[in-house]
């Protein structure tokens, strides 16, 4: 009877332990012989007598409270289906969305008929994971003014295991660009929202009044872009390449690292240089 090793890596089908006292969790299986095998490639973890193998790479595994970026795939009966790179589409209930008209507004039958006016197939949104189901599916909510439809930018996708979970997933970056880093590996790069100083100061002074709430809620479902300058568009493209470089070199992605690699990338005046593998490796070597 050997103690399983908690330091190394397990490959699919590898024997973890032949001791029947352990309980088998996610990422493990057993056969006729009552021994425990790994079903994925990853590291072994234990909680008391429960063994689980956490896979190194794979689809996004939703956790309650995660800030994610997803895309609507289906408008259904009082709910939307949202694709977020997990094994199953997440569901977003009509009741978990702030509709224009204030927080206290009641949902009517009309809202049910007009669901496509709020969110339709293909729309991108950021949301929070509210509940995770047994089968790997999850429910989302957008009950905060931080969440809603995404505009003024473009999407960049990386493997979800490269995302470092941080307190804040939205980062104001150099060059008037803001990055919303979804825990599922979807990163939204957009023009920075911070160009409305007078509105922000009034909000600080008075708190949220009813009118502002209404206009912000309408903004959540706005379907057009603001005016975006050429420089900002170029910067967004450069950030896109920087993120791809990090992903190619298997580096973790988080706000301060994005700032760092962007600074380093400015050596190359032509952002198209960042597509070369030597340049990517050189940039990632410079990072702390």
């Amino acid at each position, binding site marked *: 009877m050997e103690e399983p090793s908690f330091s190394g890596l397990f490959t699919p089908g590898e024997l973890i332990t032949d001791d029947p006292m352990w309980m088998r969790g996610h990422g493990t299986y057993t056969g006729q012989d009552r021994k425990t095998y790994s079903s994925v490639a990853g590291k072994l973890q234990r909680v008391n007598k429960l063994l689980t193998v956490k896979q190194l790479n794979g689809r996004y595994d939703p956790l309650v409270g995660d800030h994610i970026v997803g*895309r609507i795939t289906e408008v259904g009966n009082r709910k939307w289906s949202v694709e977020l790179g997990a094994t199953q589409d997440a569901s977003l209930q009509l009741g978990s969305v702030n509709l224009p008209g204030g927080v206290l507004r009641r949902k009517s039958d009309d809202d049910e008929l007009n669901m496509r006016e709020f969110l339709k197939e293909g*729309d*991108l949104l950021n949301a929070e994971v509210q509940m995770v189901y047994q089968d790997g599916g999850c429910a989302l909510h957008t009950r905060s003014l931080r969440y809603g439809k995404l505009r003024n930018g473009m999407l960049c996708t990386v493997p979800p295991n490269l995302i470092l979970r941080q307190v804040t997933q939205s980062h104001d970056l150099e060059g008037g660009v803001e990055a919303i880093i979804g825990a599922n590996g979807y990163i939204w790069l957009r023009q920075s929202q911070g160009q409305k100083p007078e509105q922000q100061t009034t909000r600080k002074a008075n708190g949220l009044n009813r009118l502002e709430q209404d206009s912000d809620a309408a903004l959540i479902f706005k*379907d*057009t872009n603001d005016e975006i300058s050429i420089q900002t568009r170029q910067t967004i*493209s*450069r950030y896109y390449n920087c993120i*791809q470089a990090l992903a190619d070199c298997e580096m973790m992605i988080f706000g301060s690292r994005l700032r760092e690699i962007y600074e380093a990338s400015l050596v190359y005046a032509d952002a*198209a240089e*960042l597509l070369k593998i030597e340049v990517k490796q050189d940039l990632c070597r410079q990072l702390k």
Partner: protein
Amino acid sequence: MKLSNTELEFLRTSLTGTPVIRPDSRHAGQLRPIESEIDILPMTYGSARVRAPDGSDCIVGVKAKVVNRHDDLIDVSVDIAGLKDNDALPNSLALVLKQVLDSCPEITNNALIINDKYGFNLSVDCVVLSYSSHPLVILSAAIFQALKSTHLPKQLDSLEMDENMDLTKTKTADEAEIPQFDDDWSQSVPLCPEGWTPPLLFIVSAINNTVVIDPTINEQLVAEASMFFTWKNSKVSAPIETLNTGSTPYLGAFAPELLLEAYSLVENCAPALEQSLLSSE
């Protein structure tokens, strides 16, 4: 995949402005870098794997067998991982690639012909493991590399054959024509004639008044039309066809002046790609 209205609008304004801003900062006439390896499959006569940094990956293997000579000596099959069996894309890609290879007399009328009665049937089998832009470009680069590395067994000429043969035996007319090959693989002959390179394909998209080469899938979604160009014998040649990109929101056609611009884009970047593929061997 469907994009949101704001994404489409952002992409299209970026691509139609001056300067043209592509999502990955490339210039309008710039290809994505690709890397390739050859002779990766030991059971084939020639093989190649081509990868792009965005994760596109494609493997091609070439095999040959002796058949009764007929006009149709090249078979191309394409398999794309993750697509259903009844998807039309792999078949339409195979058809295009076969059409391109069939119009190369350098191999169909030359290396594949053994004698009046027999010829080599060439099977070009392609697997696309993943792709993030139209797979035609990466497929053509992989086929280019695979054909370039393909060798066929050396045919023993009849004189040499006679020495090894039992002369007392009488031969029928059919037997006399059965080709004999050298079993020493180091003596094998390359499929492609010296100095000739297989054709390459390039995709060009028209977006309002701009033309971009090697578009990503998202760029194709906001384009009016996409076409592919064949680069053969150091010039743009047939087939040049429109690609079916499905029903995209800005569907339209190629304006004649854009066609000329697309032509020059291909002419500008094709020799460099050809060179880089040849030098990676």
